[in-house]
Structure formats: C-alpha cells, structure tokens
C-alpha cells in the first residue's frame, strides 16, 4: 500500500506576533527570527498514515509530498524520523506559498501525485499559515477520487477504507473504496516521538527533489482570488483589574464578591 502524505512547511505558527512582518511592496509576509516547521495539522496526517502502517506493515510505503519555494531538509527529517519512508520535494522559485492560492496548490500537488501509483492520499485539515482548508478536497476533485474530511481514525480492509469523521456532537463512520483522499482532523493526535535510532536512520532515507518542469508544468496555474492587501490587526486590549490578597484564597473571595457587585454574575 502506497500512502502519500501532503505536508507543508510553514513559519512556526506559534511564533510571536512581531515575527510576522508584512512587506507592503511585495505583498508578502516575511517571517523574522522564527524557524520553518512542519504544518501542525500535517503532522496529524502523517500520524494517521503511520497508524495504518503499524497495522499493515507488509508492503506499506509512506511518501511525504511537500511543495514550496525552498524546503528545508532539516524540517523534513522530522517526518522521516517519525517513520515516513521518503520525501518528495517539489521545489521551485516560482512556488512561493504567499503567491499561490489553494486552487493553484491543489493543481500543482495533483500533477506531482499523478507521477506515481498510490492507494491513499492524506492531507491536513488546513495549512497552518493561510488556514484555507481547501487543498484536500481539491485533490480529490482534480484526481476524481472519493474524499472524507475531518477524519480522526481510519482502518483499511482489503481495498476498502473506513474512516471516522468528526461531527459537532459525535462522529460518523464512512466507507469508501481506495484510492481515496482523507483529510485528517486535529483530533487524530500528535505525531509520535522518534527514538534515537530512528533519528539516525532517517538521515539515510531518500529525499527526491523535483522542479516545476519535472511535474510537467511551466508556471503555476491561474489564481481564483486576488489578494488586495495585508495588514496587522489591532490588538483590542482591556484594562484588567487584578485581585490580590495576603493569601491567594483571599484573592479568590474578593474576585467573586466583585463579580457579584458588578453584576457579572
């Protein structure tokens, strides 16, 4: 079974506010002083793939597909150490994430995916930079495959896939034949932690680099949206009234009394 996990490299989304500097001339965000990381939800996607491989180790192969202008091998090493078998980078100057929308991204990834036979594609619920949440369904549309979104668990039986899809008040079990696309939800849980040995072995695993021409495209496909501008949001700070007391318990009591007096409760 060949599983392709789509993983995007993004500037650390938990970086401080000042780290996301807006360049008004280029219309791009230039991260300052924060490292690139694997997009958080794509780690959930990889974890889901690894769990399938845990159950079906024989013949299972997990490829990580990542597209971007420059993709760091150090960042991708984390995926290999966790258990991915190979990395396929689609790397090209023309592929700046800030200039591609989901429409273009899905077409580019689909072009890369078409180059190899596969059984399952797993994506994250949304990329942690632009948070679009469109590429997974886009891949299914372009490749004419079934898609199950916000799945927190999957099992494979023969050629059939069963996925648990998150609902507002529970979940539903969905069935589909493979090949298929699964969009993993954050409820999958965190990516496993690699051992020292796995980390060492990861360095020996293959990393392939493809250019745009290698996936049969010259320029990225057209956009469906025009980005007019970027701006930093206002921080709406409030004046906080701090309660204290000689012992913490007093503070708790004073807080409750004040909330009552102010008719908050």
């Amino acid at each position, binding site marked *: 079974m060949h599983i392709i996990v789509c993983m995007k490299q993004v500037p650390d989304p938990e970086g401080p506010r000042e780290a996301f500097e807006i360049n008004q001339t280029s219309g791009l965000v230039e991260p300052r002083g924060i490292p690139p990381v694997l997009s958080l939800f794509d780690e959930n996607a990889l974890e889901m793939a690894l769990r399938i491989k845990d159950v079906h180790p024989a013949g299972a192969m997990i490829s990580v597909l990542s597209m971007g202008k420059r993709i760091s091998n150090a960042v991708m090493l984390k995926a290999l150490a966790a258990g991915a078998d190979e990395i396929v980078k689609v790397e090209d100057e023309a592929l700046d994430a800030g200039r591609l929308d989901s429409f273009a991204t899905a077409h580019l990834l689909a072009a890369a995916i078409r180059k190899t036979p596969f059984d399952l594609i797993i994506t994250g619920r949304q990329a*942690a930079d632009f948070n679009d949440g469109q590429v997974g369904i886009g891949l299914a549309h372009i490749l004419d495959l079934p898609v199950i979104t916000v799945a927190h668990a999957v099992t494979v039986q023969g050629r059939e896939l069963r996925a648990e899809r998150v609902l507002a008040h529970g979940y539903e079990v969905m069935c589909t034949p493979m090949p298929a696309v699964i969009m993993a939800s954050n409820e999958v849980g965190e990516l496993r932690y690699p051992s020292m040995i796995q980390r060492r072995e990861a360095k020996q695993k293959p990393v392939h680099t493809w250019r745009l021409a290698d996936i049969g495209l010259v320029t990225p496909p057209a956009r469906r949206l025009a980005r007019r501008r970027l701006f930093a949001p206002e921080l709406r700070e409030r004046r906080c009234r701090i309660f204290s007391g000689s012992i*913490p318990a007093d503070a708790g009591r004073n807080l409750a009394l004040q909330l009552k007096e102010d008719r908050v409760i």
Partner: protein
Amino acid sequence: MHTDKQVLVFIEMEADRIHPLAPESLEAGRQVAQGLHAELAAVIMGGAVSDAVRDVRHYGVERVYIVEHPLLETYHGEYFCQALSAACLTATPSVILMANTLTGLDLAPRLAWNLDAGLVTDCVAIEASDGEITFTKPIYSGNVMAVYAPVTMPMLITLRPRAFTPLSLSDAPQGEIVPVAVNLDQASVKTTVVERILEHGDGIRLETAERIVAGGRGIGKAEGFSLLKTMAETLGAAIGASRPPCDLGWVSAKAQVGQTGEIVAPGLYIAVGISGSTQHLAGMAGSKTIVAINKDPQANIFKVADYGVVGNYEDVIPVFTETLVEILT
C-alpha cells in the same frame, strides 16, 4: 425568474430548525448584497425544511430556495454538494456564503471546486467600496489579516462564527419560496455513511453557553479539571479548554476553544491556567467579560481580561467557588 443579482446564504439546519449561527450568516449576506446592489436570498436543504423556512423568512430575504429530498435528511457532503450546485444553477448567485462550521468546511470547498469558484474560508469582515467587494480573513495564526477580492464570479465565502452581529428578526415574514428539484441517487456517490455515533454531552453546550469555565495546560493533570467542574456547576457554566488539555486527553476534544476549536462569545469566560496564545484568543476574545486566573503576572491572557487573579489556581479556585455558593444561593 428574477433579473437582479443575488447573494445566496446557505442555511445549515439543526434538528429541523435553522442553525444558531444562521442569523450571523444572513447578516454577512446582507452586507454583501448591499455592497453589490444585489438581493439577499437563502437556500435550505434537508429532508423536510418547512420549520426552517418559516424561521428564515423573518430575516428580510427576498427569496428562499428549498431543496427537499430524503437523502438530504442528514448531512452528506456529496449529496449536499449536488443539491447546492442545483440551487446555484437556478439562483445564479454572485456570492455564496455559509458559516464555517464542520459542515461548512466540508461543503464550501466541494462546491467551490465543483463550480470552479474562488473561496475565502474563515472570513471575519466584508467591505464594499468603489463597486468592489472585499473579504478579510486572518492568516498566520491571526497575526496578519489578508484582504481578498473576487477574480471570477460566483465567489464563495465561509464565515468565522461570532465575527458578524446576528441579523435581527423582522416582524413580518417575507420572501418568495422557490423549490429546486434534484435527482439524487445512491449510485452517484463514492462514500457511504455506515453509522453515526452521537454523544449526548453531560454538561451545558459550549457553543451556546452564557458562561464558560476553561482550563489550560496550567491545570497540569486530568484531575485538576474536577475543581473547574465544581466551579462550572455552581455558575451554570460549560467546560472549555485550550488545546493542550484536549491533546493530552484531560478533557474531551470537543471542549477545545480557539482557532481550530469552538469560537465562543459568552457573557462570562473564565480562563484558568491559559497563557493567551493568538490561537486561543481567536476563539474567545469576543466574550463580554473575561476573567483570568494564572500564576504568571506577565501572561498574555491578562491583556485581554477584565478581571484577573495572579496565583496558583489550586489555591484560588476552592475559595472562589465557596464564595460563589454563598452569594448565588
């Protein structure tokens, strides 16, 4: 047939009525319609939609498209996409809007790809000037806002919960009802639902709670949440959490508040052992009154809070709850 431009709001149903977020979607739709000098229309799809139609006709819509079919009884992405595509064919809307719920995040991209339309997800603001309409969404964890304009029509928008003031009810119902026929059959879909497992949560529902008590990583252990539960019961509040307690299994994943969890705006939000990351603030900054209990006086949460206690929650909360019992009974 109508000749004017239309803006179409997809109305999600919940137990045969309109979803609690529908009035917000309708307000966003109203803003777009005004900007484009277009008419506001709604579309409702389901097994039986008459109650929901009655609800929505109180929101000043010109038209309500309805798609009724037994296969639309519960949400299924493929059937709903086919049905909504059919409604769009009839309504030929310039812009289609829906709430960014679990349904919206499945349906909107399906429809966008099907109609070959641009989609802005998680929109928080709409502006119209010089005949151009723009849609703003937070990117990079909410540290930057991006403003998008359509390149092609129709264009799709999903709306962040709590970003738009709910449209108020009008007295007289209005809006022509336009049924749309669809042919749905089981052979046309690639995925099937085998079963649905619904949890009947034991407490108050987070999304609609008037008071929320939320715990973060600072709670330190699953048992720590029992202190919060007692406090929540005293206040009649729902339990919420930041991401770490959900990931660590201290509370249900459904308790998560924030960018990837529930977006709430209760009258009272009490954040305990939560530092106040941008991702968490995205889910609760709109609360009327915010109380923070945190042992670090520098914690970011105090910047958005109205009341705060600096201290170890295990020392503060028992007395806080005791006092609540005293004054509330």
